[in-house]
């Protein structure tokens, strides 16, 4: 098995606010991230696929195809968007890095022809990232 990772970047804004909680609770839990004007990050997405190397092509998966799928499924809908207001997964879910990684996994799972999605990693900053492997 060989693991192949492709990286992409997107910039988006978000804020954390749960309407089920009081304003004080929101402020206590989310702090500065609760500012309703939002704030932004340059996210880095890493998608790792796993597979056997095709004998003829020498590829686990055509990188160009992976790049196109990542662009179509994720980047086009999230780059320069407000995650809370414009990305459907976050209509009723907080756009934390955890939930963002899960949403991206769900968008990509089943879309990779030939290879198996192994890991989605989302960096919110250099010092914070989340990995998901599709485990329940």
């Amino acid at each position: 098995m060989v693991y192949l990772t492709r990286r992409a970047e997107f910039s988006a804004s978000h804020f954390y606010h749960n309407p089920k909680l009081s304003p004080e609770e929101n402020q206590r839990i989310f702090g500065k991230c609760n500012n309703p004007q939002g704030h932004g990050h340059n996210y880095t997405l890493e998608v790792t696929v796993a597979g056997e190397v095709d004998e003829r092509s020498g590829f686990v998966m055509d990188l160009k195809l992976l790049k196109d799928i990542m662009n179509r499924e994720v980047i086009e809908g999230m780059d320069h968007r407000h995650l809370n207001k414009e990305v459907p997964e976050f209509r009723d879910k907080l756009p934390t890095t955890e939930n963002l990684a899960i949403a991206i996994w769900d968008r990509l799972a089943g879309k990779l022809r030939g290879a198996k999605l192994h890991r989605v990693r989302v960096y919110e900053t250099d010092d914070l990232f989340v990995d998901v492997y599709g485990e329940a």
Partner: protein
Amino acid sequence: MKAYLTRRYKFSASHRLHSAHFSEEQNQATYGKCNNPHGHGHNYKVEVTVSGRPDRDTGMVCNLADLDDFVDRVIMPKFELSNLNELEAFRNIVPTTENLSRELFHLFHDGFELAQVEKIRIEETMMNSFEYAGERELERR
């Protein structure tokens, strides 16, 4: 879906690699420059990985503020600008980054109760890094 959140911290500390089990010559042969009796220092980068299903109300595996607070209270006072050889944990073991990884894993694992502590990864320099996930093999990369 289970998520693995990794947060990166840094601290600077000095150490000297010298084993009581070795002769002077063996220490010199084993540790080379790192055996210098005056010690030397590193800017350590520490990554701690915690896991869980994001909380329904907060969307978080654990609140980063709580993890940062734990590091500020428990980890940094002990390690930041310290001499590792002086710490109780390294009284009888050599403060290699292998052993530092184990010590930090146990401090997080035993002390931070708000999420499952999965792994510690330490970069001693840009050129080397160490990972410890307790006495089990790393399943995920």
